[in-house]
Structure formats: structure tokens, C-alpha cells
């Protein structure tokens, strides 16, 4: 049996590598083949004048501009919620929590990290219902609700990268400043945080990427097919990944479908750029974060 395995393993591994590379290149190749021609300024602004659209003087009806603005504001807001809470929680876990407390927090954050996005979306949706009924009629599925729900989704990423960045600092560098009379907080602020910074920032970038690509959470909490550039936190909005999903199921004609392909290329570029950046800063950041054993 082992003999056979020894013989077959190299061939098998090469085969698997080939299959994987074939799969990924057919996905990207197909997208590029179908949509590259459509990637131009008209994709973003349609027939509207780009300058007028950027100044928000004119609305764009047949371009991706509103979706891009929607995705951008969504990302900024959700990461804005998640960063302070996530980093603080990560520091608490790495530097303060001990024993049973730490165990329970670790356990809960493992669970949070593993929750399917549709559950976070459903939670956001039922939260909206709850608030709409008991707090204010004005609260409807909107940018604000989506960003909060998305913040829940990426919170474990930021907590885990922060925690990991702190915990993997050598014991010695932790003790040095303490031996010199630094308080716990001084040690964190002056010594540990600067050293943990690359790890944390790669986590933040991963969180941005995750916010930019998520479709399900926003689908349940406020993204719509057509809304223009969002004017307020309480208004519905468009988003790039949802646009792609929407086109894939609702396209009316070939022209619209072609725009879907181009939008997919755009999203692909954005996400791959973010992930390469995160990997450049910290190798292996993503899988160790999400799946911290």
C-alpha cells in the first residue's frame, strides 16, 4: 500500500496542482475574455458627464458609479466600527485576560469567526425589524444597519489579527520595558503596539476586503437594485458585489450582462489588490486569522 502511494503521490500532486491552476485561470480568463472590453470610464458613469457625477451634480443611471460609492462608504463605515472595538478586544485578550475569562472569550470569538454570513445578515435584518417596531419607524434597512452588520462580520478578523500580533511578540521584548518600570499600559502603547502594527494593519486590510466582497449580509440589510449615490446613513444604497449578483439573475439584455462581466473584473481587481497588500505586510495573515487553531 505504502509502496503504491510512494509511486503515485508525485503524479497525483502534480495533477491536483494542474486542476487548481486550470480552475482559477478559467475563472479569471473567462471574465477577462468577456468583460475586459467593457472596462472604461463609461462603465462607471454611463452617459453622464464624469465630472458632474463626481461633484454629485448629476445622477448616474446606467453606470457603476453609485455602486462604487455605496461600496466605498459601506467599507469605510463598517471598518470604522470594527477597528476600535476589534483592536481593543484583541489587546484585552492578549494582554489582560487570563485563565477562564480568556478561555470563554476565545471560544465565543471562534464561534463568531465561524458563523455563516447569512446568519449575520439575518441578525441584522431582525435587528432592523426590532428597532423599527420598538424604537423608531424611521429605521429601515439602510447603509447604517448594513455597516453595523458587516462590522459584526469582520470583527473576529480584527480581534484575531490583533491578538495574534500581540501574542507572537517574543516574551523578552514584553519583559524588557516592564523591567524598566513601564506600566502595563505604557508597555502596550510604547513597545508592543508599534511592533504589532504590521499584523494589525494586515488584519484591517483583510477586513476591508471582506466588506468589499460580501453580498449576503448587505442583501438582507439594505442594498437595493437602484438608489443612486446614498445621501444619508439612513438611506438604501447600491453596492458592487450585489450589482454583480443582481445582473447575474436579472439581466435584461446582452449589454447589461456585459456590464456585469466588467463589474466583476472591477471587484476582482479591488479584492486581489487588497489581499496582496495584506499578504505583503504579513505573510499568511488571512488563514491564520480566520482559522486560528
Amino acid at each position, binding site marked *: 500500500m505504502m509502496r503504491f502511494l510512494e509511486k503515485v503521490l508525485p503524479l497525483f500532486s502534480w495533477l491536483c496542482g494542474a486542476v487548481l491552476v486550470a480552475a482559477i485561470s478559467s475563472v479569471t480568463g473567462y471574465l477577462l475574455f468577456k468583460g475586459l472590453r467593457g472596462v472604461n470610464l463609461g462603465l462607471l458613469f454611463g452617459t453622464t458627464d464624469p465630472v458632474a457625477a463626481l461633484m454629485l451634480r448629476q445622477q448616474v443611471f446606467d453606470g457603476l458609479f453609485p455602486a462604487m460609492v455605496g461600496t466605498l462608504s459601506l467599507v469605510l463605515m463598517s471598518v470604522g466600527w470594527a477597528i476600535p472595538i476589534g483592536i481593543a478586544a484583541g489587546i484585552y485578550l492578549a494582554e489582560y485576560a487570563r485563565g477562564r475569562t480568556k478561555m470563554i472569550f476565545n471560544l465565543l470569538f471562534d464561534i463568531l469567526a465561524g458563523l455563516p454570513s447569512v446568519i449575520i445578515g439575518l441578525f441584522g435584518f431582525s435587528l432592523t425589524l426590532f428597532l423599527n417596531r420598538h424604537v423608531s419607524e424611521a429605521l429601515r434597512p439602510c447603509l447604517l444597519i448594513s455597516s453595523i452588520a458587516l462590522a459584526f462580520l469582520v470583527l473576529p478578523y480584527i480581534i484575531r489579527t490583533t491578538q495574534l500580533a500581540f501574542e507572537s511578540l517574543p516574551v523578552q521584548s*514584553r*519583559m524588557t*520595558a516592564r*523591567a*524598566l*518600570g513601564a506600566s502595563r499600559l505604557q508597555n502596550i502603547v510604547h513597545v508592543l503596539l508599534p511592533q504589532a502594527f504590521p499584523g494589525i494593519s494586515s488584519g484591517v486590510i483583510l477586513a476591508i476586503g471582506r466588506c468589499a466582497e460580501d453580498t449576503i449580509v448587505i442583501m438582507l440589510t439594505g442594498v437595493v437594485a437602484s438608489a443612486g449615490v446614498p445621501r444619508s446613513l439612513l438611506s438604501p444604497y447600491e453596492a458592487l458585489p450585489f450589482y454583480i449578483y443582481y445582473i447575474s439573475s436579472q439581466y435584461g439584455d446582452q449589454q447589461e450582462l456585459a456590464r456585469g462581466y466588467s463589474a466583476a473584473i472591477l471587484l476582482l481587481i479591488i479584492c486581489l489588490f487588497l489581499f496582496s497588500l495584506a499578504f505583503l505586510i504579513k505573510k499568511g495573515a488571512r488563514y491564520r486569522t480566520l482559522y486560528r487553531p
Partner: protein
Amino acid sequence: MEPPVKIRINSLSFCYNGRKVLRHTSVSFSTNSITAIVGPSGTGKSTFLMTLNRLWEELPNCSLQGTVEIRFNGVFSNIYEREFAVEKLRRQVGMVFQTPNPLPMSIFKNVAFPLELAGEKEKDFIRARVEEALQKVRLWDEVKDRLSESALSLSGGQQQRMCIARAMILQPEILLLDEPTSSLDHTGAEAIEQLLLQLKQNCTILVVSHYLDQVKRIADRVVELRDGQLCSR
């Protein structure tokens, strides 16, 4: 005349990772002297040093009973008393580790760091004290032109001397050293020995060491850690 006692340890027990490092041991150390602590490796000499500045509290799975009294301004106080501020203690009890541990900052910032932690803001004062400390460890001439370079660019011996300067900048009354020369070559080690002899003028020094000849050269007194007890040799 016997110099006055600086550190008084009473029935101290210390447990680390389930292992009893100290068992109801009592010992005292006199002011402005060098005491060498020797003993087989793995008996917990380093962790013993940490009981004197409470640094063990940063390690997991440790427990301690007994008292450690240190004389500050002529009065003995138990450093494990509730109201004793641990940061203040550590500013009075300097510590140098086995391997040089510069922080990832400039040389100047490294040495000035404890002062800044203590809340010192006067720039000129800091500058003067950094120079003084570096002079004391005889590093000033070597680094005075490159104070803003990273401390990591120094050689091992230089790094260790810088670490001593850093530990000395608050002018502690006690200095703990954990095999300070073990990662250095012969010349580096000799420079540090010289330095210690000079520092003992106004500092109580405890040094963990492996090298018997080194111990003979510098120590006023040798204490052995064996079976959880500290006894003079």
C-alpha cells in the same frame, strides 16, 4: 565594619510551572556589594532574580509566599505589600537580561526610554542623563555620532552595555544581572566586569553567573541556589 543590609528575604517560597524554585528560604544582601548567584543550571536562578522586582508576575503559572524587604531611604518595606507600586519598585531595581534586548528604536530612545516612562519631559535633562549613563558604561565615545540609529545595529557587546546603561539611567539602588556576559566574547565580557566593579560604588548588585573564574574576579560574596535554598559559600 559590615556594610548595612539592603535586601532582606524572609521565608520565601516560589513556585514556577508547578516546580518549587524556592522553599522557605531566608537570606540578606548588603549595600553596595556584588553578590554572585551560582548553582546548577535549571534551578531557577533567573526566576529568583525576578522575585526581587516582581517581574515574575508577568509570567504565567507562578505563585509566591513570604516577604522580600528592601531598604529605601533607610526604611525597610515589603515589596509584596498591597500598596507598594510595582512600577516604582522596578524603577529602583534595574535588571539586565542574559541576551541583550534592545527595543526596536534608536539608541538614544532606548536609553532614554525609562526616563520617559517615568514621566520626564525636560529634553535637556534627558539628554544629559543619557550621555551620563552612556559614559558610565563606556559606550558614549563609540555611539555619540550615531545616537539616532537603530539600536539593533550595535554589536552584541555594545548592545549589552547599552542595556546596562538603560537599566542605570534611573540611578537604581539595586541592579540585577542575569548572566550578562554569556552571549559575549572575551573582550566584551571583560569590559562588563570592569563596569560592574565600578558601579558597585553606589549600587547593590546581584549577578547570576556560570563562570567560576568570573565570579572569583568580581564577587564580594557567592551564594548558591540548591534544592530551593540560598546559602553562602
